[in-house]
C-alpha cells in the first residue's frame, strides 16, 4: 500500500518532468528553425561585396546593402542620442528622488504605457512632429522615432538597476561626507554601471530591428546618404522592400539582409550578456 503510493508519486513526478521538458523543446523549435532558415536562405548572397556595395538596379547582377547597413548604424546612434540621456536621467530621478511622489508615479505609468504602444503609432507621431515641419524624410526623423521607443525601456531598466544598489553603499558614501549628487554620480551609478549598460544594449538591440516607424520617417534610399537630413536606407526597410519585390535576386538579397540584421542583434545581445555575467565589467 505504502509502496503503491510511492510509485504513483514517482510516476506523476516523471510525467510532469516529461511534459515540461517537451514544452521547453517545442518552444525551441520556432527559434532554431528561424535561425536555421534565415542562415540557409541568406548565406547564398552573404559576401564582402554585399556589405560594401550599393544596391544594383533591377537586372544588374551583384549589388549589396552597404548603405542600408550604414543607415541602420546611423539610426541606432541617433536614437541613442535621443533616448539614452533622457532615459538614463529619468531612471535615476525615479529611483533616487521620486520614490513616492505623484509626478514619479505619472512618469512610471506613462513609461509603461509608452513601451506598449505599437511602433507604427510612434512612427505616425514622429511623422507629424518631425517629417511634416521639415518637409522631408530623414535619418533625424527616424532617429527621433526610435529614440521615443527607447526612452521608456531605458527609463524603467535604469530605475530598476539603480534601485538594486544596496542602501548601505549610499549610507557609506554619505558617512564619508560625500554630498548626495556626488554619491549618485560617483558611487551609485558606478556601482550600477554594468547593469545600466546591459539595459542600454538590450534597448538598442530592440530598436535595431524596428521597421514600422522607419517607413514614415527615414523612408528609404538607394544611394549613400549625404547627410542625416535626407531619406536614409535601413536594413529593415530594405529587407521589406526587397522581400515584396517580384525579382528573385532581390528576394535573395532580402534574406541576406535579414541574416545581417539577425547577426547584428545577436551580437548586441551577446555583448549585453557579457556585461551582465561579469559584474565587474569589461569597461573599467
Amino acid at each position, binding site marked *: 500500500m505504502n509502496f503503491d503510493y510511492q510509485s504513483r508519486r514517482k510516476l506523476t513526478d516523471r510525467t510532469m518532468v516529461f511534459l515540461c521538458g517537451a514544452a521547453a523543446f517545442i518552444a525551441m523549435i520556432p527559434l532554431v528553425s528561424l535561425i536555421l532558415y534565415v542562415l540557409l536562405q541568406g548565406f547564398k548572397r552573404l559576401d564582402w561585396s554585399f556589405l560594401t556595395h550599393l544596391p544594383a538596379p533591377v537586372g544588374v547582377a551583384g549589388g549589396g546593402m552597404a548603405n542600408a547597413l550604414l543607415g541602420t548604424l546611423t539610426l541606432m546612434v541617433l536614437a541613442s542620442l535621443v533616448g539614452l540621456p533622457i532615459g538614463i536621467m529619468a531612471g535615476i530621478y525615479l529611483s533616487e528622488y521620486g520614490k513616492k511622489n505623484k509626478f514619479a508615479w505619472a512618469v512610471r505609468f506613462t513609461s509603461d504605457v509608452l513601451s506598449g504602444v505599437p511602433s507604427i503609432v510612434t512612427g505616425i507621431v514622429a511623422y507629424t512632429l518631425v517629417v511634416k515641419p521639415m518637409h522631408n524624410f530623414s535619418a533625424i526623423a527616424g532617429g527621433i522615432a526610435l529614440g521615443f521607443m527607447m526612452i521608456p525601456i531605458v527609463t524603467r531598466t535604469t530605475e530598476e538597476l539603480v534601485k538594486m544598489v544596496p542602501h548601505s553603499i549610499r549610507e557609506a558614501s554619505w558617512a564619508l561626507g*560625500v554630498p548626495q549628487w556626488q554619491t549618485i554620480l560617483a558611487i551609485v551609478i558606478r556601482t550600477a554601471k554594468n547593469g545600466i549598460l546591459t539595459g542600454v544594449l538590450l534597448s538598442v538591440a530592440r530598436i535595431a530591428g524596428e521597421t514600422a516607424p522607419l517607413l514614415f520617417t527615414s523612408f528609404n534610399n538607394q544611394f549613400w546618404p549625404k547627410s542625416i537630413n535626407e531619406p536614409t536606407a535601413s536594413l529593415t526597410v530594405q529587407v521589406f522592400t526587397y522581400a515584396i519585390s517580384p525579382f528573385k535576386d532581390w528576394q535573395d538579397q532580402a534574406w541576406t539582409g535579414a541574416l545581417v540584421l539577425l547577426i547584428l542583434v545577436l551580437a548586441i545581445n551577446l555583448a549585453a550578456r557579457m556585461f551582465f555575467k561579469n559584474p*565587474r565589467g569589461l569597461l573599467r
Partner: protein
Amino acid sequence: MGPMIDEVAEKDKKKEKKKVENQEHRAEARKIEVAHQDKEEGQHPLKMKAEGVCAWFGTKQALYDVNMPIYEKEVTAIIGPSGCGKSTLIRCFNRMHETVPGSRFAGDIFLEKESIFDPRMDPVVVRRRVGMVFQKPTPFPTLSIYDNVAIGLRLNGTRDKKVLDEVVEKSLRKAALWEEVKDSLQKAGGALSGGQQQRLCIARALAIELEVLLMDEPCSALDPISTTKIEELIHELRQNYTIIIVTHNMQQAARVSQKTVFLLNGKLIEYDATEKMFTNPENKLTEDYITGRFG
C-alpha cells in the same frame, strides 16, 4: 463642558509630570557627568557632547533625553539590548539619523564648541569630521582597494596623485591593512575577506582627516580573529582619534573602552568609567544587564 475641561486638565497634569520626570532624568544625568569630571584628575578634554537627545522614527520615539559627554582620545562604548537605541544614538553623532525618511530629532550635539545641528552647519562637513564604520563592511564593490580609500579625498577635490598615494598608504597602515594589500591595490575592494573589508572601511574613513570615528557594531559580522585585529586597531587609533563604538558584546566593551554608557528602551541608564561600570555599577538595571540577567 465640564468633562472637556477635566480632560484638558488631565492632559496638562500628565505633561507636567512628564516634564518633571524629564527634568529629574536630566538632572540625574548632569550629576553623573559632573561627579565623573570631579572624580578623575587628568581627564581628557571634552570632544563631543549630547544634550537632551531625542529621536523618532515616524511616531515611534527611539531615544529619550540622552545626555552624555564624549572625551577626546578615549573610546566610549554604547551597550544595551537589541532595539534599545544604540545605533540610533550613534547615528545622531554624525547626523546620519536624519537620512532615514520620516525620522525626527530633538536636542543638541556639540562637536567641540559648535553645535552640529546649527542651521549653518552642513551635514556633509560634520560627516567629514565625524566618520563612521558600519556593522556590515561596505566597501564600494566596483572600486579598487586604492580607489576605495582615495574616493573620499577625490570627491572632496584632491586630484594630486602624489598626495593621494601618500594618504592611501598612510590610511591603510593606520588601519593595519597595508602589509596585506600593498601588492594588490588595484584589486576590487569586494574581493577581500570580511575582516579585511572592515579594515578597508576604517582606512577609507581615516583618509578624510576625521577627528571622531563612530563604529556601529564593527565586529558583529566578523570571525574571532578578525575581531581581535579590529580591537587591537581600536587601541592604536585611540592615540589620535576619539572613538564611539556600539557593541553587542559586553566583553568587547570592557576590553576596548574607557567610558561606557548603558541604554535601555531609549533611555540612558548609566554612564561611567568602563572599569567602574563593569565592577561596581550604580544602577540595578545595569548590574542585571551586565551579569546577563536579561538582554
